[in-house]
């Protein structure tokens, strides 16, 4: 019993003996700012547009691609969801469909593959430069769209920071900024397209990229406002530079077999990328609703 008291007295006297390294570091260094709020109220997504049973017109597109990748310091097998927002113009007199890239929100499920690993409190995040949207037509797809009510299955090849490929689908991407195929697409003075990376490390990565989408056929919805379907995709990226060497290694993206889909909503001809970015998923909520 005396021994117990002895231990208890010591244990109690040690109770407030704690030195916390993390607290000391938090006091010494400010944390990186989180995502900044744009301050703009979220629109309700209601827009006025004349419906049509024909596929020709202007469309806001949302293309969801799910893949897996390994990211240093984050996870060995992250589930990545890329959501590309684009404006699509389908001419009424046939010819090429024009895709204009607007934004690419990214979500990552960092639930670790190893269940003993703790989940990462902050998913990695990158921002695609707005200037990319101002670089003009970024993808192409050519087929006859005249007088049809269906969007036929077709392939979209979308290149970032690289041009003049003889075969945009098959030719290897350049691996050096010195390649004549590389150009400063976002006009920021750096080769290729600059991706601003916020986490896990901050920095800028200069890269070239090729996304290939094989969209399944879709019919214009009964209300004349929607095109929805599935797709398969591949994404290939090369880092041709960075302001931090730790950002120059890119992990390949392995597409998931399911969950890849696109939705297009008919929008007015004067609808802009800015409108699309402001509305975001709100614009597509009807298509995302169960049962549609």
């Amino acid at each position, binding site marked *: 019993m005396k021994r117990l008291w002895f*231990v208890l007295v010591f244990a109690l006297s040690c109770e407030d*003996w704690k030195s*916390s390294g*993390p607290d000391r*570091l938090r006091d010494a260094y400010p944390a990186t700012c989180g995502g900044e709020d744009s301050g703009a109220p979220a629109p309700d997504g209601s827009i006025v547009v004349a419906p049509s049973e024909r596929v020709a017109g202007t469309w806001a597109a949302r293309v969801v691609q799910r893949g897996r990748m390994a990211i240093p310091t*984050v996870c060995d097998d992250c589930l990545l969801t890329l959501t590309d927002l684009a404006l699509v113009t389908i001419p009424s007199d046939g010819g090429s469909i024009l895709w204009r890239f607007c934004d690419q929100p990214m979500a990552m499920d960092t639930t670790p593959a190893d269940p003993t690993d703790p989940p990462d409190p*902050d998913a990695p995040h990158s921002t695609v430069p707005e200037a990319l949207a101002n670089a003009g037509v970024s993808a192409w797809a050519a087929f006859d769209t005249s007088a049809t009510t269906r969007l036929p299955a077709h392939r979209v090849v979308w290149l970032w920071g690289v041009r003049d490929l003889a075969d945009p689908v098959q030719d290897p991407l350049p691996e050096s900024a010195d390649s004549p195929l590389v150009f400063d697409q976002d006009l920021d003075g750096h080769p290729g397209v600059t991706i601003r990376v916020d986490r896990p*490390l901050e920095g800028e990565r200069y890269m070239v990229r090729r996304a290939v989408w094989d969209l399944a056929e879709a019919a214009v919805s009964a209300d004349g406002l929607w095109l929805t379907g599935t797709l398969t995709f591949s994404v290939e990226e090369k880092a041709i530079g960075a302001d931090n060497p*730790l950002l120059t290694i890119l992990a390949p993206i392995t597409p998931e077999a399911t969950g890849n889909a696109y939705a297009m909503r008919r929008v007015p001809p004067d609808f802009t990328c800015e409108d699309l970015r402001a509305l975001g998923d709100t614009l597509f909520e009807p298509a995302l609703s169960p049962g549609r």
Partner: protein
Amino acid sequence: MTPRARILAVACLVAALPRPSGASDWSDKVQFSGYLQSDLRYVIEDYRGPRRGDGYRFEMNRNDLNLRLKIEPDPRAQAVVDARFRFYGFNESSSLPELVRRDRIDPYDFQLNEAYLAVRGAPFESVDFRVGRVIQSWGTADMFNPTDNLNARDFSDPLDYTAKVPNQMVEVTWYPTDWLTLTAVWVPVFKPSLLPPSASLGFAVETTDDGCFLSAPTPPLDPSDIRRLQRLFGAADPCRLSFATPEVRTLQPDTTLANSQAAARARFQVDFGERGGALDFSLSYFYGRFTFPVAYTAVADIGADPDDASAARVRYVAELLYPRMHVAGADFAYSPPVEWLPGLFGEVAVVFPEEVTFGLAVVQNGRIQPSLLMSAINVPSTPFVKATVGLDYTVTSWLYTNIQYVRGFFDEFNDQYGLHNYLAPAIELKFFDDELKIRAAGAWNLDDLSAAVFPEATWVVVPSVEVTGGVWAYLGDTKPLDPASYAGRSKFGQKAAGRSVAYLKARVTW
């Protein structure tokens, strides 16, 4: 006091020693002793230095002069001064202006080992006290004394691993009976242990011969976080990562009363007579700090390399602290009544530590990257035990053996490196009327199987003059056995343990 002034002061002290004429009163009151020692060491390997290939060279060319003066101006009073001059024997000048400075060409230092006054029978008949710079030795084990925490360890010379850092203290001893001694000690200011020159290699970043990043020290984090860090830096071209020499800071406790240290001991000495032998038994308590620092924080600050725009510069800053602790101890030594039985001794310390949480942050542009702020409990508040038990046995007049089991080496706390188990055997043979002594000793880590071995031979040329030659060798893997674990380092194999050397010492004592 400048080094020159220190030398003058001690020279005056020596000059004040008794002289033949008119010194009769003082000759009984003064004892002068000391030693002179020459120490030459040669590194016998080339793989334990900062870079492979550094070795096969002289490591030491040292001369020590130790002077100990004990003065008893009164039968009940004593003053002790123990000082050492050390001349290192290596030229440290590296520029023309330094060639005019003797302390660069022939560097030396002065060490005051002890300087205290002691009074017997005051203020009461059965009470003594000591005040000053003292080296204490508590415990009954042979060198591995977990209850001996009043003085920090002096590992500046790994071969002299029994050395301690002196400290100012006040000691009061009470002798209530013949068989019981009560001692209380107060140490106003904390002093840390001295580490060997190789200690910084424990935090070294290793690079290839062409300067490319190879490995960084493993922090005390969970394996998953260590893997995250390894992936972070492993993702980059190692030749484009410029790691500056890590900066390791130690957080010193404030010199406040709350940070002073105290200890108490009750020592029992029992003689069981001719048939029972003698038992020396102590109970002790210590409040203070562990004198070896433990990992507390680390920051990997990533920025642009000013010399190479395409490379990243990583600055690693670590902080260590000396955790507080209570130590409840007990020790015993038993001398059997017959020669054919070995002597037994044992010592146990229950340590109640301060909890230390380690934090590591990756910082960029002066800001923490939130997903790269990692932490782990480095020292839990759970009490833990350090202990030594052993026996010594004089087999014959020329053969002596000693073996100890040790849990928790001098520098081990219950941090993520953990407490290891050791076997420390020693054997000593004497020949030619003790003129030649051969001793082989070592410490073997039972957990990672690394070892330190030190065989030596001593020739007693004439009484008081010894010449010793030997080898001090570390055996074990210099690379971590598990790179993803803070505890993966081999105790004696890691480079931070030191260099393997052959040595030659000559010593005269008086």
